[in-house]
Each structure stands twice: as structure tokens, then as C-alpha cells.
């Protein structure tokens, strides 16, 4: 069994600009940093192509992949006719797509990164050389969450983004996204922003833990808050590793506009950049809800096309 599966979900469209270009960057960078660290045998990258309506993502990106992707990248294609049976009126059900990624991964750890977010070197050092490798006399938590940094437009440029990832001083100069969550700030009303409540850098869940909780709640087919809801369920039962502070937010979000982003989501610092995409009810952050997923969650009964690049 591989140790880790990086799960990315996306589709062939122009969401908030060149989403396919950003996805190619993320896939290529993930494969490059894995190869650079000599951990190919312990890793895989799973890209779930969810509901591409104008040609598959696989076809669209195949000629743009780096050589390191060979043997590392697996693409699971969920065509629109299948996706539409599950996602209701949502244009892109991330929860289903991520559960599909889980069902088709080989790794012991599910590691969800956004399709436009880049992995940093501190994470590589931590995961491959410390997490469950070093025995400190206590059990490592089965779930971990890391916030991310937002590359500016200039920092996102293909000619420089690697500098901001590999240079340890420069990397810390990139703005942290959702700082209140990153530092778990205590508000004057006595509430605490949980470190796992901000924008995702990586959300890691051990395979057994994921199964016990039946994955992402497939009722939450719209944007945002699904990670927090899932982690709330885990947090109610066991420790979560604060990877945000441990590796100091070592994930890097590529800059893009937000015209098609979330609407009416007051949990976002950029809420004033009102988008048009429907979001999950914010209430799911503030109360515990049951996960009603059926046994075949993650489209277990669907026959999906899987391509190893």
C-alpha cells in the first residue's frame, strides 16, 4: 500500500479564469516535488475529473503534463451523465468528487489539496520523515489539517512560484489565508476560530478513520464548509494534528479572480468579492449534523474510467 494519496478534484472548464491551467500547475508541481524528494514509491496523485461537459480533463491536460507524472498520476473520470445523477442542482459537487477520489486511492492517507494549491517542502519533510515515522511515545493523530498561503498574482507567475515554495524565508513572506483560523484566535465573545476551519492547504485523514466516518457528507453538494463539517465529526471523537502551526502553512494557493466564486459566504475574508456560486448552509459549521451517506457512498456502484498516466 502507498503511504499517501493526494486527491485533487476538478473539471474541464474556465472556472474563475484558467482553472485548467492552474490544475495542470498543481498536478505537475505535486509530481515534481514527489520525484525531487525520492518518494515516488510511497505516493500517488489522484485527479478526479468531475462532470466535464466540454471534453474530458484527461484529454485537455495530457499533452501538458511533466514526465514525472508518469506512473504517479491517476485520473478518475466521472462523466456528466453519472455526476448529474448524484449532485442535484449543484454544478460541481466537491463532496462526491472527493469521496470518489477516496474510493479509488491506494494510499493509507487521504490528502485533499485544492486543484489550484501547491505543496511545500516543509510538508514533504514532515510527512515522509516524521509523521508515523518517528516514535515520540504517543500515537500520531489520524487526521491533520493545514491552512494555506495565498500567492499574489506576481508570486503565482510560473517563472517565480517555485522560489516561494522552496526558499524557506521567501515562503513565509506569502500571506496566510484566513489568519484567524490559522492562529485559532479567541474572539471577545468567547468563541475560538478552529484551526481546521479555514481554507484548505491539506486535509489529511487516515483511511480507516475516513471509512468509520463515511467520508464527506454527500448532502453538502454546494461550495465551502464541507471540510469543517467532516473535521468536526472527527474532532468530537479524537485528536486532530494542527499542521497549520507545525509546518507554518506550507501550501500555496495560486492567484485567480473570484467572479464565479462563493456567494453570501461571510466566513470568507474576501466575502466582499461576491461570486455567484451557491454555498452550503453556514449553519453546518455551527452545529453537529449526522452524515446520512448510504453504504455505497463515493459512487461505489458506478463503473468509472480510471487512467494511469
Amino acid at each position, binding site marked *: 500500500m502507498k503511504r499517501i494519496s493526494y486527491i485533487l478534484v476538478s473539471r474541464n472548464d474556465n472556472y474563475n479564469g484558467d482553472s485548467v491551467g492552474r490544475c495542470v500547475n498543481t498536478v505537475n508541481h505535486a509530481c515534481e516535488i514527489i520525484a525531487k524528494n525520492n518518494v515516488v514509491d510511497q505516493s500517488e496523485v489522484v485527479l478526479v475529473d468531475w462532470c466535464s461537459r466540454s471534453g474530458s480533463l484527461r484529454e485537455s491536460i495530457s499533452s501538458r503534463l511533466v514526465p514525472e507524472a508518469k506512473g504517479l498520476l491517476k485520473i478518475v473520470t466521472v462523466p456528466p451523465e453519472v455526476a448529474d445523477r448524484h449532485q442535484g442542482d449543484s454544478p460541481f459537487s466537491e463532496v462526491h468528487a472527493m469521496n470518489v477520489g477516496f474510493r479509488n486511492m491506494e494510499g493509507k492517507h487521504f490528502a485533499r489539496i485544492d486543484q489550484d494549491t501547491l505543496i511545500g517542502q516543509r510538508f514533504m519533510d514532515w510527512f515522509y520523515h*516524521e509523521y508515523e515515522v*518517528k516514535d*515520540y511515545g*504517543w500515537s*500520531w*493523530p489520524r487526521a491533520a489539517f493545514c491552512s494555506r498561503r495565498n500567492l499574489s498574482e506576481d508570486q503565482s507567475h510560473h517563472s517565480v512560484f517555485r522560489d516561494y515554495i522552496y526558499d524557506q524565508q521567501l515562503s513565509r513572506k506569502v500571506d496566510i489565508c*484566513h*489568519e*484567524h483560523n490559522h*492562529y*485559532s*484566535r*479567541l*474572539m*471577545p*465573545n*468567547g468563541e*475560538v476560530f*478552529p*484551526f*481546521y476551519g479555514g481554507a484548505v492547504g491539506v486535509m489529511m485523514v487516515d483511511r480507516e478513520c475516513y471509512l468509520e466516518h463515511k467520508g464527506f457528507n454527500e448532502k453538502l453538494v454546494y461550495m465551502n464548509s464541507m471540510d469543517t463539517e467532516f473535521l*468536526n465529526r472527527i*474532532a*468530537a471523537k479524537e*485528536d*486532530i*494534528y*494542527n*499542521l497549520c*502551526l*507545525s509546518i*507554518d502553512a506550507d501550501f500555496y494557493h495560486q492567484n485567480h479572480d473570484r467572479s464565479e466564486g462563493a456567494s453570501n459566504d*461571510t*466566513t*470568507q*475574508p474576501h*466575502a466582499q468579492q461576491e461570486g455567484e456560486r451557491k454555498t452550503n448552509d453556514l449553519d453546518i*459549521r*455551527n*452545529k*453537529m449534523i449526522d452524515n446520512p451517506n448510504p453504504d455505497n457512498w463515493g459512487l461505489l456502484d458506478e463503473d468509472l474510467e480510471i487512467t494511469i498516466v
Partner: protein
Amino acid sequence: MISYFKKKLNKAKTAYENKSLQILKYLDRELNYEQSLKYYTEQDKIKKLTMEYKSYKFENEIHSLSSMPETAIEEIIRINKRITEHTWGVILEADKVSDINVYIAQMNKVQINARKANFFVVTDSEDILLKLNDVFNWMNKIFYIVPNTYNHNIDKKYRNSINFHCLKHLEKHVSTPGSVHMNMLKEIGGIQVTVPNQNRVFCFNSKRLVPGS
């Protein structure tokens, strides 16, 4: 005469304009604070310490209260007035801080379990104090780091002792390993000093963060 009045009126106009701008700025800050309790709002970075501070060295030698000048005693009283029964001492010797996030995580844990907790930070580094003020504040309005005072007329040699005398009244502390003050506090007895384990500290029991807990 006319030009004199014009000059005066212009001066008054500028003064009113400046005052109005100040009031508007203040109201914006208040609104921002109010909204922050309901909506996610960008935090204003603190780039300059909002308290008095001058770096000094940690030392083993502590001046007794009776041997200190009156101004130093007054300083201790002034600081103690800002300290509550919920205040934790935080002792950070800069050369022993390899990763400030270790201490931020430990302080987070304190706050998660005791929402009234605040921190009296004793450190020989202005950068560390600035960082903690930036992290543990709310919209530049509510501070969970107890503000220090620093009377510049007090001889520098008493600074270490002033802070120690303030710390010894606190029951709970977070400290860098083997700090000078930690060892002395332990000798007093009945005082809890936590040195965070730099790996274990990031494991969070988050049950109290879960809705409805």
C-alpha cells in the same frame, strides 16, 4: 484684515477636516470590530508594539523587594493591576525559542480550555513580543497579552527582578526549556510551569471547538 480672516478661516477649516477624518476613521474601526464578531473580517497587522518595552537580559540574580527603589515597586504594582486570576505567565528566552509556533500552539490550548485566560509575557526579544501581540489580539482592540509598562527612569538592572516579582504571583506558566525564571519559580513551590513538547504540542484535543460542546 480680510486676508487675515481668510487665513484664520482656512486654518479652522483644515482643523475641522482633520478632526472629521479622525472621527470617521474611529467609526470605521468600531464598525469593523462589530462586524468581526459576526463576519470574517481581515485582521489589521500590528507592526509596532502597542506597549512599552525595552529588551533586557534574563539573569539569575533577583533583587529583593526591599532592596528595590520605590519606582520599581510602583512598576510591579502597575503591572499587577493588569493581571487577573486567569492570567498565565509566559517566559520566552529568545535563544531557546526554535519555533515560536510551539508556544502559540500551547497558548491556544490554554485559551481553548479557559476562555478568560490572558498572558503576561516576559521575554528578551521585542520581535517575539510583537509577534504574540499580533497573533493574540482581536482587531487591534481586544488584547489577550497583558500590556507591559516600562518606566525609563528605573535603572535597567531592576527590569529582570520587576518581571520576576510579577510572575511569582501567577499560578500557571508556559516557558522555554530550562529558563532562568522557571527554575526559580519551581523553587518557590506550588507553581505550575509547562514546557511544551515541540512535537506533541501540535496534537489538539479539539472537542471543545466542536459545535455544541
